[in-house]
């Protein structure tokens, strides 16, 4: 199977879907002539024309609100928010309007909208090009929030998101774009939204994570395996809805849970995973449900030494695994 990067997988998914269904179109800042600031839509304006690859004015609320209106009358827009740090102006449209539109119209409206946004740190992006936002959005009923980690999942999940009648917030970790490579079939396939994936089976403890951290977690698991700690690594992939079945099955097997994410600790996705486990797998637990997350500071600093303090890595994760295994 051909090996591709995450950004290639994203590009391929969008291109294939735009070829397959002419209701699908892309809009956002710089997505047209420039092909996106990360080149996710490189070559698109040439292939699909200006009407289906819209360079919008610099106005995020309108990007999502206008896309939503088009979706309500039958289109299937993909709206790109250039960086997650600039996603906050869309909250009124995405959380206030779009996520509630189906419920609020008693099923009359569908809003098959995908909002794609590059997020995350470790890229020398400083306070305003490193943010995560899933801890904010995953609280929203009516919304699906997807955070792929691998090229294979990125392509398959993005296709599911585009074909899906629900609004989807599709978060792509910037650091995975070019650094993470993996096998990706050339043709069509989908990966279901709402399903976690056991990326490494294990018996001693369960590690739940998603996005870039999956890769660091797998490295850490490989390292501690040398000391006989057999870690199960579960890639959540979708953070809303969470796949509680897979989460609980894993904890029932291993009796220990470690949750790892880059987003700030308090109120992050890990809080909900911990709450689900402690409520529904209480009897199975042999140790406290533990979280290793981004620190509770407002964002990642620009200076490289401070950035490193914010970011998790293989060593920090391995240490947390060892500590929990030894409990």
């Amino acid at each position, binding site marked *: 199977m051909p090996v591709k990067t995450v950004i290639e997988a994203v590009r391929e998914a969008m291109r294939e879907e735009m070829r397959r269904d002419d209701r699908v179109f892309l809009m956002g800042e710089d997505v047209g002539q420039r092909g996106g600031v990360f080149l996710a839509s490189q070559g698109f304006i040439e292939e699909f024309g200006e009407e289906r690859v819209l360079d919008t004015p610099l106005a995020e*609320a*309108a990007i999502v609100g*206008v896309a*939503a209106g*088009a979706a309500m009358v039958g289109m299937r827009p993909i709206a790109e928010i250039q960086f997650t740090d600039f996603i906050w102006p869309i909250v009124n449209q995405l959380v206030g*309007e779009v996520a509630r539109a189906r419920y609020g119209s*008693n099923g009359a409206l569908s809003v098959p909208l995908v909002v794609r946004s590059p997020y995350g740190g470790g890229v020398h992006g400083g306070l305003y090009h490193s943010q995560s936002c899933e801890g904010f959005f995953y609280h929203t009923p*009516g919304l699906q929030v997807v955070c792929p980690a691998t090229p294979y999942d990125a392509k398959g999940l993005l296709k599911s998101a585009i074909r899906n009648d629900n609004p989807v917030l599709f978060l792509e970790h910037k650091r995975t774009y070019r650094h993470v490579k993996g096998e990706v079939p050339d043709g069509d396939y989908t990966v279901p939204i709402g399903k976690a994936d056991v990326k490494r089976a294990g018996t001693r403890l369960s590690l739940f994570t998603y996005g870039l951290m999956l890769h660091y977690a797998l490295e850490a698991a490989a390292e501690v395996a040398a000391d006989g700690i057999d870690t199960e690594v579960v890639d959540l992939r979708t953070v809303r*809805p969470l796949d509680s079945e897979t989460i609980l099955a894993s904890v029932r097997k291993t009796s220990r849970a470690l949750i790892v994410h880059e987003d700030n600790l308090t109120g992050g996705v890990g809080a909900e995973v911990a709450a689900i486990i402690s409520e529904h797998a209480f009897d199975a637990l042999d140790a406290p449900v533990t979280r290793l997350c981004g620190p509770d500071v407002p964002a990642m600093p620009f200076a490289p030494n401070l950035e490193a303090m914010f970011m998790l890595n293989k060593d920090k994760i391995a240490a947390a695994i060892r500590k929990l295994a030894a409990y």
Partner: protein
Amino acid sequence: MARKTPVAGNHSEAPSAAPLSAEQVAESYRLMLLSRLLDERVYALNRQGKAPIVASAQGHEACQIGAVWALDKTRDLFVIYYRDIATCLALGYSVSELMLGYMARRGAPFSGGRQFPYGGADLKRRVINTSNVVASQIPHAVGAALAFKMRREPSVAIVHFGDGATSEGETHESMNFAAVHKLPVIFFCENNGYAISVPLRKQLAMARISDRAAAYGFPGVTVDGTDVAATYRAVREAADRAREGGGPTLIEAVVPRLMAHTTDDDERRYRTAEELEERKRRDPLPRLRQTLLDGGLLTADGDSAMRRQCIAEIDQAMAAAESTPYPDESTFYDHVYAPQAKK
């Protein structure tokens, strides 16, 4: 698809902007009267504790009806706001249907009783009003217009909102977007001079909302919103231009707000007794009645009969709504997600 009603007027068969016919003018009066009487009734229902919240259209009726005449219910899109009662009657909603909305009963249009009256959507009849969050519907109309343009459909989207809504950032972003992409959308501002208690001079520093259009590069017009025909002409012209690829128009229909903001509001806190008295002179209803009487299109007896008929319709709608149950509780969890996705 829009239901056939006397109001329909299939404009696709009559593309030239003919003036409103005598029958249309007379029908406008009936709709205005019906809207007014319905409005008064639901106010009374509110005071009896039967309708938790009512936003009145009193004073706005003429412009709402005029705008509907100018459009095509079979292909245009109506993105309305909470004050568009006469708009809905003109679009063909029956009093019985609307009454279900006020009383949050099963089968209420737009939301089946989940939202305040007029919140939700009815795509079959080409009406959308996702919420009562001021201005949030404006980008939706622009998005629909974008879809019409992409699909080469000859449809126009009209979006209604108040004067206060023009201050919101989403209004600006949407108008600018529509301008750049020359979209077939009509921004229809029902300017009643107040956003709850905040008067226009605290809302913007200019006299005319239509002047904002100059900031986007499309036409802006101000019309007397108490005049059905004047509003009709302005919207018709905008719709024709939009259909021909000429892009958006901002229409400001100046109207009086004859009642408090909603049944929750006490406007004596911020409007003087004189002002409350003065505004009555701008009431579109007696004005149109006089025009019809003068023109021999209505008699005093005909007027009384019409009034009795409207009241009978409202009485019946009320009785029907009161005997309609609330929404089925088993539907509480429905429509959080579309079927193919796991909850």
